[in-house]
């Protein structure tokens, strides 16, 4: 997270983001049409979202409440009085000829979301300019290959509730922008505001970027701001910003063009080519002639309403990380990994930790075994075949000394592969606790067969006993290596 110019990057990259998230409602913002993704074209439409004459919008209460929840979680001030406005422009996927949005009195403003690097102390507080609630447009589909064919319009998405989140230009590197977006997504998913599925268009990001370049006489030259669109993943956002910063630096070296001397440029990210391309300049496009939406009445938000929303909200990830680390005495890094996997995985971990009684042990199993398996197999933690009770039993038996951790891992793998219970697998693998008499007999045999080891240990090289463990496992795979070592050392001392 470099914030200052260095030899490698002789400029500071200044980034602000504009994020649109689809709110998790069942119906659209102003009508009762379904918001389910993937329906056949033009099957979730009605006179209101088609913009037919005589239809009137009525605000979806859940959409407004989810938007308020998002704004509260981002630390925004909630306006006691808010209204909606018409943003006028012509485009075939906008049937009314205007978008119902918010202009001068958005329902919230002035928040912040911090991005923290769990591996270091570095963090960045990113100010939120505003969060507002607006409707989505429909979808235009153009078959580029067909050349001059028609554009097809599907209005299923028209009128879907969107929360627009605008940041101040507080981000200072492409990596930081990506990390911040991850934190924002996690927050919104945790709070049930949005599923943030980028493939389905539930989360869309535009980025504004320019460079601050130290130049002659301590003056800072600022390159013209470019808005980047068409980024379909957080990885694309990072790549597009890296590309754009380099492009702007090159352009600045060639032209010395500075901010304010040219109109703001919009560039589209071409992911396969890995470049941004200038988009056609829309003449007068910034003149949206906003005016108050007469078909919607204003909304006033009382303190009681806000208090109830806060109450129902649950912990944001940042708070949950701290609580988890404190409650289970696990390192901040562990808590970060667990929380970043989502609410369901945290619930699994807490169930496990409760049963095991030792947070760190439970966390180790989560990080090493459960998460690795989950990554390999895909799927959700809720569908994970080894439930917390079974895993806790396995861990408990390791603690009791029935078998060691590596043996427990084999059992874990077998339980996963076979779908049988821990007991069944233990029985089928012939795993049985080795009693002390058996162990003494085995160790005596080993010592008799390995006079060299005995001599070494007696000569002070205790680590020589390690050589006996492999042999012991060969004789009886159920022995506990720690116990074998301790027993052998005891016996040698008695010799």
């Amino acid at each position, binding site marked *: 997270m470099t914030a200052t110019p260095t030899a490698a990057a002789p400029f500071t990259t200044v980034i602000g983001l504009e994020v*649109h998230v689809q709110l998790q*409602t*069942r*119906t659209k913002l102003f*009508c*009762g*049409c*379904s918001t389910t993704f993937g329906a*056949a*074209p*033009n*099957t*979730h*439409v009605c006179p209101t979202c*088609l913009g037919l004459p005589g239809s009137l919008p*009525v*605000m*979806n*209460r*859940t*959409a*407004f409440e989810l938007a308020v929840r998002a704004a509260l979680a981002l630390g925004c001030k909630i306006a006691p*009085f808010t*209204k909606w406005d018409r943003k*006028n*422009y012509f*485009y*075939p*996927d906008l049937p009314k000829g205007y*978008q119902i949005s918010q202009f001068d*009195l958005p329902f919230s403003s002035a928040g912040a979301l911090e991005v923290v690097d769990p591996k270091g102390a570095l963090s960045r507080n990113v100010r939120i300019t505003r969060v507002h609630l607006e409707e989505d*447009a429909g979808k235009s589909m*153009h078959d580029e290959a067909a050349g*001059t064919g*028609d*554009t*097809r*319009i*599907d*209005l299923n998405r028209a009128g879907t509730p*969107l929360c*627009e989140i605008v940041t101040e230009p507080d981000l200072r590197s492409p990596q930081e922008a990506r990390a911040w977006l991850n934190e924002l997504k996690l927050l919104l998913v945790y709070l049930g505001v949005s599923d943030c599925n980028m493939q389905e268009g539930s989360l*869309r990001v*535009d980025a504004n970027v320019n460079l601050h370049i130290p130049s002659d006489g301590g003056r800072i030259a600022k390159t013209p701001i470019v808005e980047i669109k068409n980024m379909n993943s957080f990885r694309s956002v990072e790549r597009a910003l890296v590309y754009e910063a380099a492009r702007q630096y090159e352009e600045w070296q060639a032209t010395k063009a500075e901010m304010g001397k040219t109109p703001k440029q919009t560039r*589209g990210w071409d992911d396969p080519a890995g470049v941004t391309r200038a*988009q*056609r300049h829309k*003449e*007068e*496009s910034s*003149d*949206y*002639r906003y005016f*108050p939406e*007469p078909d*919607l*009445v*204003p*909304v*006033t938000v009382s303190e009681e309403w806000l208090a109830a929303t806060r109450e129902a909200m649950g912990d944001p990830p940042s708070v949950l990380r701290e609580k988890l680390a404190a409650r289970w005495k696990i390192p901040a890094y562990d808590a970060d990994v667990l929380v970043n996997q989502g609410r369901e995985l945290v619930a699994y971990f807490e169930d496990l930790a409760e049963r095991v009684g030792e947070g760190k042990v439970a966390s180790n199993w989560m990080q090493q075994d459960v998460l690795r398996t989950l990554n390999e197999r895909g799927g959700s933690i809720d569908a994970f075949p080894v439930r917390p009770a079974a895993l806790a039993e396995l861990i408990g038996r390791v603690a009791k000394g029935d078998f060691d951790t590596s043996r427990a891992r084999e059992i874990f793998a077998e339980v996963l592969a076979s779908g049988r219970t821990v007991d069944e697998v233990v029985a089928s693998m012939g795993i049985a606790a080795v009693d002390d008499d058996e162990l003494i007999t085995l160790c005596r045999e080993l010592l008799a067969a390995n006079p060299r080891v005995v001599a070494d240990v007696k000569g002070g090289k205790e680590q020589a006993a390690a050589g006996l463990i492999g042999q012991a496992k060969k004789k009886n795979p159920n022995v506990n290596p720690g116990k074998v070592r301790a027993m052998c050392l005891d016996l040698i001392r008695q010799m």
Partner: protein
Amino acid sequence: MSLSRNDVAKVGLLARLALSDADLDTMTRELSSIVGFVGQLEKIDTANVAPLAHPLDTQNVFREDVPKPSLSTAEALQSAPRHDGECFLVPAVLGDTGAA
């Protein structure tokens, strides 16, 4: 307050109206007179009047988030000048959408 011919040409462009020179002359005269008429309001001292967001003295009108039946695709498309049975058809649109 009066409008210039350029103001009217710009408004015409924003409204996607093809205005001829004669249209521009007429519209400049007529729109100026309308703006002038409304402009009388500027004579009123509004220093102590709160801005009005909506003429109705009503707030917080919501509906519950409950799905209602949509139109059939055939009904939705029936008034469209052109469609293919699934989608509305419009002349080829390339490039970026207007806004989001």
